[in-house]
């Protein structure tokens, strides 16, 4: 994302319906958003909404195939 806009970007992201978890991270990326959708078409809508937020420069999508959690 573009510097100086993090607060507003996060505020916009928190409005996205299917976003389960939003983590601000330190490293190559700035924000990790975990999304829960029923179809890939809905995933497209979410990524679209993310990219439309003013200040978001680039997004990378990883589709979960399998998960183990505590």
């Amino acid at each position, binding site marked *: 994302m573009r510097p100086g806009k993090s607060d507003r970007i996060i505020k916009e992201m928190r409005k996205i319906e299917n976003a389960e*978890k939003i*983590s601000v991270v330190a490293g190559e990326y700035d924000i990790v958003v975990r999304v829960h959708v029923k179809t890939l078409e809905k995933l497209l809508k979410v990524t679209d909404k993310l990219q439309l937020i003013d200040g978001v420069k680039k997004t990378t999508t990883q*589709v979960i195939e399998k*998960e183990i959690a505590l």
Partner: protein
Amino acid sequence: MRIRKKYLFYALAFTSAIIAAGVSAIDATISALYIPNVWAFAFSCFIVGTVISLMIVLVFSIPLSRKESLGSKIIDPSFKRVRLVRKKELKLHVIAGAGNAVLTLGYLSLLSILGDPSTVLPFSQIVILYLVIIESVTEKNMPTISEIQSSIIVTFGAILVSISLTGSISLEALAIVFLVINPAWVVFSIYQRKLKLLKIDNRPNDSLNIRLWNVIFACIFTTALLLVSDFFMGTGHLIEGITASIEHFDWVALTMGITFFSYVFYIRALGIGRASVTQAVRASTVLFAIPFSLLISYFNIIPPFSTNPVMILIKTIGTILVVLGIISFALAMMKAYVFINVKPGYPIEETMKNLWNIRGVTHVTATAGKYDFIIKIRIRTLVKGYEKIIQKLEEIEAIKKFKWESVLKEWEEI
């Protein structure tokens, strides 16, 4: 609603603690004035508790829309309606119910010996020490020095607070604390958390049904225990319990109704945080119990408090230690994501298992896209992150490269 998860966690755990302190004052009143027989009181708690809990859950089952009920709207979003126990829950409910039954018997025995709730409640906080040990075994999470320090501070603080203001400690009470209450609380707490983490019909298990069924199973366990005890010892606790339930239904219903909400909030907090951290926050009940004890002491239900400055000083130091222990316990925690690429020719399942076996790893996710795996990590310190995680990742042959991203702040859908 999307809020900082930790705010909800603290709100739930503190509310549960305040309610628990109030309940203990009501319990002390019932024990002193109406039902002095501990066995009969415990049994009546579960008989009346079953009726009251069922009524509450039925009210919360009232549908508001096709997807939403009253309970899901105001108490727990995972709740839909009252339901029967599923097969996969049965074993967990039997163990948690037995834990609750033994815990209640121990707690009421202690209350009848000591009388003062502000003296009884701190004793049950020593459970934090047991939980840290159990978590280190069950959740592949070795306790850090800060965790051990905090647990010991809370334990000693609780012991100091629990020295009654007359300055005496009963050996019988100590035996009940260490051999009955705390082990039973550990079993109860761990299995309630296991139940909360289960998925029922692809939804997280709800705290209202968990509490209802816990009371029912605790009632069954207590009935069996009393039947055996009455048969071999020739006592009549079972009949006394039933009589007490009828004669003092209003008082027991009051305590069990309020307890229901205390536990529902506690179970929800358990589903969010680790058992030991939840317990640490809930330990604040020690503080909240003091005004309630003063209140019932004012009405001469329990003996009046001593004004001896040494005893007041000991109680104050103990309270400060418990609070300090809680704060240091709850604050020291960091999370990170690690994005991983693997080399071709290594089975995915095996790599996933190797990643999962690293202590501190809470999620392993196999993904399609730029990376092959994303793992989530929860650790106390960055040093531990290097020693326990990075070194272990480097040992896994299948890993080509990885990227560490520390989490600075997080929001989560509850």
